[in-house]
């Protein structure tokens, strides 16, 4: 009587066989196909040091155009370290007072990456005290690149 059911009818049920795809699965696929880079702890620590030193030296143009918008951290080993990196980016965004020349130097793809950081930082509670600085960045990016950049942020599956 144990194997009385020869056909697995649950497998034929539409709700069980159409499983939902998770963000983690999407991320793993993107990494395995070489579409996005997976950061090890050493690589990310190096990047954090670079962000902090450029913020300290007030070289914001070099920081945003050459580092942050060129090497997006989509996937990393350690989530704590990723948060530390976001803290560094947030500090740089807040301390940078002359935004316009930086935004003018960005290409479409680079601006798409920078706005992903802005939205990510706005979504984390501990960064929200200085939210108005970030909103200012978002405002200026949209003014330069148009509302399409919001649509691209919403639809892109490569998320910070």
């Amino acid at each position, binding site marked *: 009587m144990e194997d009385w059911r020869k056909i697995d009818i649950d497998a*034929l049920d*539409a709700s069980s*066989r*159409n*499983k939902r*795809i998770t963000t983690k*699965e*999407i991320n793993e*696929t*993107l990494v395995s*196909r070489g*579409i996005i880079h997976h950061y090890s702890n050493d690589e990310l620590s190096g990047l954090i040091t670079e962000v902090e030193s450029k913020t300290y030296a007030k070289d914001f143009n070099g920081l945003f155009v050459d580092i942050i918008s060129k090497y997006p951290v989509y996937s990393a080993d350690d989530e704590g370290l990723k948060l530390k990196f976001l803290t560094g980016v947030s500090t740089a965004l807040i301390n940078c007072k002359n935004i316009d020349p930086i935004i003018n130097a960005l290409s479409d793809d680079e601006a798409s990456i920078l706005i992903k950081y802005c939205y990510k930082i706005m979504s984390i509670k501990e960064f929200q005290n200085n939210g108005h600085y970030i909103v200012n960045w978002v405002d200026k990016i949209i003014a330069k690149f*148009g*509302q*399409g950049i919001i*649509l*691209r942020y919403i*639809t*892109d*599956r*490569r998320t910070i």
Partner: protein
Amino acid sequence: MAKVLLNLKSPIRSFCIKNDVLAVAQENILFIYKYSTLALIQTIDNHDKTITSVDINERTGNILTTSEDRTCLVLTPSNNTYKISQVATRFLKSINYGKWNVSGNKFIITSSDMGQLGVCYFDESINWWISKHISIPETQLHGNSLKKCCWDPENDILITFSDNLGNMLTVSTFLKHLDNKEDLKDSIYGQKFPFGKVLTTWYPNDDLIPINDMAYVPNTRSQMMVLVQVDGSITLFDNMNGKTVFKAYDQNSFKPFNVVKFITDTEFIVAGYNNNALLYSVNNQTLEFHKTLTEAKREVPMKNDDEEQFASGIQALKMFKNMDSRGINKTEVPISNDAHVMAITDLTVDSGNLITSGLDGKLIVHAI
């Protein structure tokens, strides 16, 4: 000059015009008209849920409808009416799109059920339209819902489709008893095609954004394609090598497009959520915008007279003026009746005219 052909109460999801027959899908009902006189030939209400697509085969005159009720129908013309036959699809979820091949002996249907594809043909031994399924390989991460697809114009056997994860595949639908091997002799994708073989699989633009529609660029031996994605982009894509050749955005609206269709060897029309149809062309590996083909909704700055009149109103009006002061720097001109006020869902070109359908229930013909 635009002219409204039909003005229905519910959205038109899809329509098709071939051989002087106009088939329009509205909710779960299909209306079949004689196109030249707009005389209603027949109304089909066999579907229980929304009809998702309609297609007419030019050679046989057969009409194909697919629906969210998991069924699809083939309507065969006989004595000025249509004989209805249901297709045994065996899908457990909505069928999203259906398309005849050129010869009209088989058609493809895409479903939301495990991202499966159905190749349907008429089996004379049982006198029934049946469906043979193709599944995306398990090794490939894929979405559960397939969207539009298009037949390879070179051979009528290969099909390219995409899913809701922006995964685009080209597969073979070769059926021994229906297709001829000779048709595939010149194909750049190879020459040996068992049924269901996956020939190419790409994530165009590497962003996994769903693809709304796609079309082969004529005279490129089925190598180049134009894709429209949900992020509002129009991409010229090399399907043989998986490379994006050129990517463009509509700089006026940035809204996504629903449909792309070639009208000449180089020119194509895109239409969608910006309520307008736009003419683009493929020119030396780039995409070039030419003009807007439909009447656009215009926005003009508010006149001084309007502002003065507004300011001289009663106190409450002044209060509302202060409340709304951030939003009154422009006003919209009343839209003429012969323009779409909602997204365009489908388009076709018939004898030099562009015909578009919209979510506003209108079917409008525009002179190109």
